[in-house]
């Protein structure tokens, strides 16, 4: 009697229910008995305060998915296994996810992976490169579930898109009025027209991640609090670097360091990388997912980088006060000095 073994990576998407249904159905078509492995891959990390909540969410999703499978299977012979992967390591990009799936598949003798087309590993992390490409690369067979979902363009009138349009409109209108004259009717009218065109054509480019009505304004306020801190850091670093440059012996000590930041890709990572570059003495050479390759000029700047002050501040800006209290990169062993070969 043939047993079909399936691996279904789960994440909390709109299509996850349909994916599970398809996995059970297609598995039972191919063989009499089915062994269904439901897994959640977590970018789990002890160092991050919100990890406990992420773990609860994962368990919740797994128990829901278990019920779905039992519901769809009916009388058929289906065994369900659930697992949380990646809890003991830190996952960066799609390659890491593809690799842990491959390890799990090899250990359990799995034939096929059923992939949710909307799959996004982790709870809040969005990965940039497609997971499919990495699965192809390591040669793990996968099958994309034929789910029905509302197309992305169809939701133009949805509240999410309204938020983006509104935010883009307000930002560009404000910019126009700062350059023009806010009391002159002509500027008010043309500004509204221009901001409208900008909002319609560029809202999706400006805000690639959906906005949150509560969180986003709070983030803006926290960012305003962050600016004085950043300026102070810049002044300090400037004076330190100037002292080194102007000394005739010029005691510089250039090193390349690699820091695995606890800031997820997208805007937060951009803000962190730019803050690091803006501070003299440290320069981000490359940012891949969460791994920053930073060139440091003087030892003092390197120590500051390893103490992770800017990282904490950026976490405060984007994730709130509780999230800011994380160990420094030095303490969690995420910072190292690397040679020139890493380039």
């Amino acid at each position, binding site marked *: 009697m043939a047993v079909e073994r399936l691996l279904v990576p789960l994440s909390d998407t709109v299509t996850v229910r349909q994916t599970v249904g398809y996995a059970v159905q297609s598995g039972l078509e191919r063989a009499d008995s089915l062994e269904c492995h439901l897994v959640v891959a977590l970018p789990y990390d002890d160092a991050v305060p919100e990890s406990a909540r992420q773990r609860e969410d994962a368990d919740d999703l797994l128990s829901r998915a278990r019920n779905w499978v039992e519901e769809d299977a009916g009388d058929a012979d289906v065994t369900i296994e659930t697992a949380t992967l990646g809890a003991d390591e830190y996952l960066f990009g799609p390659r890491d996810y593809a690799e842990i799936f491959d390890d799990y598949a090899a250990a359990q003798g799995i034939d096929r992976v059923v992939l949710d087309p909307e799959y996004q590993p982790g709870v809040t992390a969005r990965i940039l490169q497609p997971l499919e490409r990495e699965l192809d690369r390591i040669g793990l067979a996968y099958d994309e579930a034929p789910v029905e979902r509302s197309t992305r363009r169809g939701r133009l009138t949805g509240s999410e898109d309204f938020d983006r349009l509104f935010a883009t409109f307000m930002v560009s209108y404000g910019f126009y009025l700062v350059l023009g004259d806010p009391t002159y009717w002509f500027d008010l009218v043309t500004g509204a027209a221009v901001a409208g065109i900008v909002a319609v054509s560029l809202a999706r480019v400006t805000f690639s991640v959906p906005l949150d009505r509560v969180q986003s304004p709070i983030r803006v306020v926290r960012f305003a609090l962050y600016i004085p801190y950043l300026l102070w850091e810049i002044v300090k670093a400037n004076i330190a670097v100037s002292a080194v440059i102007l000394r005739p012996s010029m005691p510089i000590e250039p090193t*390349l360091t690699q820091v695995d930041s606890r800031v997820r890709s997208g805007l937060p990572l951009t803000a962190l990388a730019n803050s690091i570059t*803006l501070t*003299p003495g440290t320069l981000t050479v490359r940012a891949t997912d969460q791994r920053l390759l930073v060139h440091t000029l003087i030892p003092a700047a390197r120590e500051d980088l390893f103490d992770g002050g800017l990282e904490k501040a950026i976490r405060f800006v984007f994730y709130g006060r509780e999230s800011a209290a994380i160990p420094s990169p030095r303490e969690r062993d995420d910072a190292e000095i690397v040679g020139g070969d890493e380039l």
Partner: protein
Amino acid sequence: MIEPTPLQVTLETVRFWAIVVLLGLGVFFTLVSTVGVLRLPDIYARAHTASQTDTLGAGFALAGVALAFGWQHAAVYTVLLLFFVFITNPTAAHAIARSAAETGVEPVLAEEGETDESAADTEGETR
């Protein structure tokens, strides 16, 4: 013409010297940055001091300009200008550094790192 009160005169003097000091600091940090770009050994190190022009050099000079304009529309302009410089320049510096890394420009590193030292040793042996 109305005689300015002593307080106004003092305020004007303070403002004048504040502007002079701000501009002087701006010129000083740009000078440091220029010296750095001319003296430092490789592109990655030069990028560090180049960012000094963008941050404190431009920052102090534009602050001086904003102070000179006072509470006017033009001062808002200056602040906006500073904001743009602050947003765009690290991105440009990062793009340049990354382009250097991708095209294989070797960084000059201190002899502290082990990997570097061994590389230097093997180099010395082959020669």
